[in-house]
C-alpha cells in the first residue's frame, strides 16, 4: 500500500498564507468587506459540516466568485457508523435492526430490500404469504410518503418557509400513527423480517388507515396550494439545479431526479416485487429536469402512494386472519408480540406454550432467537424503488447464521455525486436548493 491518496477532506487550497475567516450565521458583511479590501478574487467557502440545510452532516466546499459558484465539492463520512461491518457480527434477523437505521427517514424501504435479499438467498421468495406482502407494500408506501414529505418540508424550511415544514411534518406524523399502531414504533421499526413481517396488523388498523388517508391528502393539498403557484417559490426553483437525462444516465441517478428528466424508470413497474404489479398506480414524470419539477413529482408520488395505501386497506380487510410469516418454523420468528397491561411484550399464549406445555418449543424458540437460522452459501443482489431512487443490497452468505457481507447501494450516496453539476455556475443560495432536491439523508449516504 505505497499509494498516497489525495486528500478528499483536506485543505481546499494548499496555501498556508491564504487568509481564513470563520462565520457562524448572522451578517457576513464585515467579512465580505475585509475580503474585498484584501483584493481576493478567489474565495473558498466551507459550508458545514454542521450546516442546517444539509439533511445530516455534510460538508460542502464552494469556490465562489462574487455570488457565483465556480466549483463545488462534497465531503461526506461524518455520519459513518459502520453498519455494514456490524451486520457481519449479528444474525440475519438482527440485520434488520441495523439496516433500518441507515437512512432514518426511509427506514422500512431498507428493511424491505434487505429481507427480499435474505429470502432470495434462502429460496423462499414465493413462500412469503400474501398478507405479509400487503403489509410490506403498505409500509413501503407510507415510508415513501413520509420521506417525500420530509424532502418537500425541509426544502421549504431551508428556503425560509417554516410553514411548509410544519405542514409537511404534521402530515408525516399522521402516517407515523398508522405505522406505530401496526409495528409498535414510529421509525427504525425492524418490522419487516426475513420471511414476512414481525406481527399482524392489530384490530382497528384498517379503519385507522382509512381515517389517515383524507388527513394526509388534505395536508398535501395544503402544501401544493402553499407552494406550487407561489411566485417566490417558483422564482427560487424554476430553472434551478438543472440536470438533463444524459447527465442523469452518466451519474447513475435514479428516483424522482431521473423521472424529472423524462425517463419513467420505476422498479415497482419495471421489476415488480411484493405484488406491485397488481396495484393500480401511475409513475409521474416531467421533462423539465429542474428543482421545481422534482418538488412537483414528489408531491404527485405522494398522491399515487395514497392510492396504493387505499388498495392495501381493502386487501387487509379481505385477508383478515391469514398468516403474515412463512410457514417454515425453521425461519419464522417464533413469537408474536401482543400488548399487555405493562406495555408491549411476547404474546401470553406463546409464553404459556413454551414454558408450560412443550419443552421442544422452548428449545426451538431459544435456538432460533439466539443462534438464528442458517442461510445457504451464495450471493444475491436485490433492488427496490426506494423513495430516493434505486435502493440495492448485495448480500453474501457463507452458509452460516450471519451475513458474510452486506453492502447497500443507498440512492442518496450515488445521487449526491451530482451536486457539482447541479450547482457549479449557479448562485450560492441555489446550492441549498440543489441539496434539498437531491434529497439525500446522510445517515444513508455514510452508513
Amino acid at each position, binding site marked *: *500500500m505505497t*499509494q498516497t*491518496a*489525495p*486528500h*478528499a*477532506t*483536506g485543505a481546499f487550497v494548499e496555501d498556508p498564507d491564504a487568509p481564513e475567516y470563520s462565520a457562524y450565521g448572522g451578517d457576513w458583511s464585515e467579512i465580505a468587506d475585509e475580503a474585498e479590501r484584501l483584493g481576493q478574487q478567489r474565495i473558498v467557502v466551507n459550508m458545514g459540516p454542521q450546516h442546517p440545510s444539509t439533511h445530516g452532516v455534510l460538508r460542502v466546499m464552494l469556490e465562489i466568485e462574487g455570488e457565483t459558484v465556480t466549483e463545488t465539492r462534497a465531503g*461526506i*463520512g461524518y455520519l*459513518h457508523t*459502520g453498519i*455494514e*461491518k*456490524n451486520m457481519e*457480527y*449479528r444474525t440475519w434477523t438482527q440485520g434488520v435492526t441495523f439496516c433500518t437505521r441507515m437512512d432514518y427517514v426511509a427506514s422500512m424501504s431498507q428493511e424491505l430490500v434487505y429481507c427480499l435479499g435474505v429470502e*432470495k*438467498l434462502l*429460496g423462499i421468495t414465493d413462500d412469503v404469504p400474501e398478507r405479509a406482502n400487503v403489509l410490506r407494500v403498505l409500509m413501503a408506501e407510507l415510508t415513501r410518503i413520509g420521506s417525500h414529505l420530509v424532502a418537500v418540508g425541509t426544502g421549504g424550511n431551508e428556503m425560509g418557509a417554516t410553514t411548509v415544514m410544519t405542514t409537511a411534518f404534521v402530515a408525516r406524523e399522521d402516517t407515523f400513527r398508522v405505522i406505530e399502531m401496526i409495528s409498535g414504533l414510529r421509525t427504525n421499526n425492524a418490522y419487516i423480517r426475513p420471511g414476512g413481517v414481525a406481527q399482524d396488523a392489530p384490530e382497528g388498523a384498517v379503519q385507522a388507515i382509512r381515517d389517515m388517508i383524507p388527513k394526509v391528502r388534505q395536508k398535501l393539498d395544503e402544501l401544493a396550494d402553499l407552494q406550487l403557484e407561489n411566485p417566490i417559490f417558483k422564482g427560487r426553483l424554476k430553472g434551478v439545479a438543472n440536470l438533463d437525462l444524459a447527465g442523469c*444516465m*452518466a*451519474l*447513475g*441517478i*435514479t428516483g424522482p431526479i431521473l423521472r424529472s428528466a423524462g*425517463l419513467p*424508470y420505476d422498479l415497482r413497474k*419495471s*421489476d415488480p416485487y411484493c405484488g406491485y404489479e397488481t396495484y393500480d398506480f401511475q409513475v409521474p414524470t416531467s421533462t423539465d429536469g429542474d428543482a421545481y419539477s422534482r418538488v412537483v413529482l414528489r408531491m404527485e408520488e405522494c398522491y399515487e402512494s395514497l392510492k396504493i395505501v387505499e388498495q392495501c386497506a381493502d386487501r387487509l380487510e379481505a385477508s383478515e386472519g391469514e398468516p403474515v410469516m412463512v410457514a417454515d418454523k425453521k425461519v419464522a420468528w417464533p413469537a408474536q408480540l401482543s400488548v399487555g397491561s405493562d406495555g408491549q411484550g411476547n404474546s401470553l399464549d406463546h409464553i404459556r406454550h413454551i414454558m408450560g406445555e412443550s419443552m421442544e418449543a422452548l428449545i426451538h424458540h431459544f435456538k432460533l432467537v*439466539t*443462534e*438464528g437460522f442458517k442461510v445457504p*452459501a*451464495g*450471493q*444475491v*443482489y436485490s*433492488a427496490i424503488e426506494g423513495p430516493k431512487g*434505486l435502493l*440495492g443490497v*448485495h448480500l*453474501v452468505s*457463507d*452458509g*452460516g*447464521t*450471519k451475513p*458474510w*457481507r452486506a*453492502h447497500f*447501494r443507498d440512492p442518496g*450516496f*450515488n445521487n*449526491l*455525486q451530482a451536486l457539482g453539476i447541479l450547482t457549479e455556475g449557479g448562485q450560492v443560495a441555489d446550492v441549498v436548493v440543489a441539496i434539498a432536491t437531491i434529497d439525500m439523508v446522510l445517515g444513508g449516504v*455514510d*452508513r
Partner: protein
Amino acid sequence: MSDSQDLTGTGAPQGGPQPGDRDQITLINVRQGSFGALGDTSGFDGLTKPVQMPGASERPYGEWFDGVVDVLEELLGDKAAEAIQHVVVDRGELTLHIAREHLLEVAQHLRDDQDLRFEMCLGVSGVHYPADAGRELHAVYPMQSITHNRRLRLEVAVSEEDPHVPSIVSVYPMNNWHERETWDFFGIVFDGHPSLARIEMPDDWVGHPQRKDYPLGGIPVEYKGAEIPSPDNRRQYR
C-alpha cells in the same frame, strides 16, 4: 489433526480451490469447530469445513443469460476465453467472473452494444475472502440494463499482495464514489480513477476497516458485575 480430517465427512478439497477445478471458484470461508473459534465446548474443535460459493454453470444457462454471454464472447473475439473466466448462474442471477486485464473492455461492451446496453453500474461492492488464497479481494459490480430490464453481476478477484483493479469510471462515471468507498474499506486500488481518496474514513486513517482481519473494535460492557464481551469476541454460533 489427522484424525480430525476424517471427521469432515464432506470430501471437499482442503485449503482452497485446486488448480484446474472449475467447479470450485470461490472459497468463502473455512469453518473450524462446531461453534466459533473462541471457546468451543462441544469437543469438536478439530472439525474443518470449507464453504464454497456455488460453482460454475454449464450451458444452457437459461433465460436471457445465454444470449448475453454469446454477444459478449463475440465482441471480445479471441480474448473471450481469457476474459470471461467463469459463468455462474445461481438463484436466478448471472455472475460473470472477469479477468481484471479485460474488465474495462467488458464494461465498454456492456454499456455500448445495443444487445447488451447495461446503462447503469450500481456501484462496486468489495468482499474479503481471507481463505481464498491468491484471490482474497473481490470487486463485485451489479449492472443494470434499463433498455432490456436485466441485471447481471461482474466479479473480479485479486490478491491482497497485488490489490489492483482497473477503474471503470471512464466508462461509468457514476462509479466514482463507489470505487472510492471500496478503496477506503477494502484497500482495492482502482487504477486510473481520477481521484482515489478515502471517502468515509478520515484521510489519515490506517487500514481498511471492512476487511475480515480488521477488528470490529467493540468494548466489553459490564452489567451488575458480569462482563459481556463485545460482539466480535463473543462465543459464536455458526
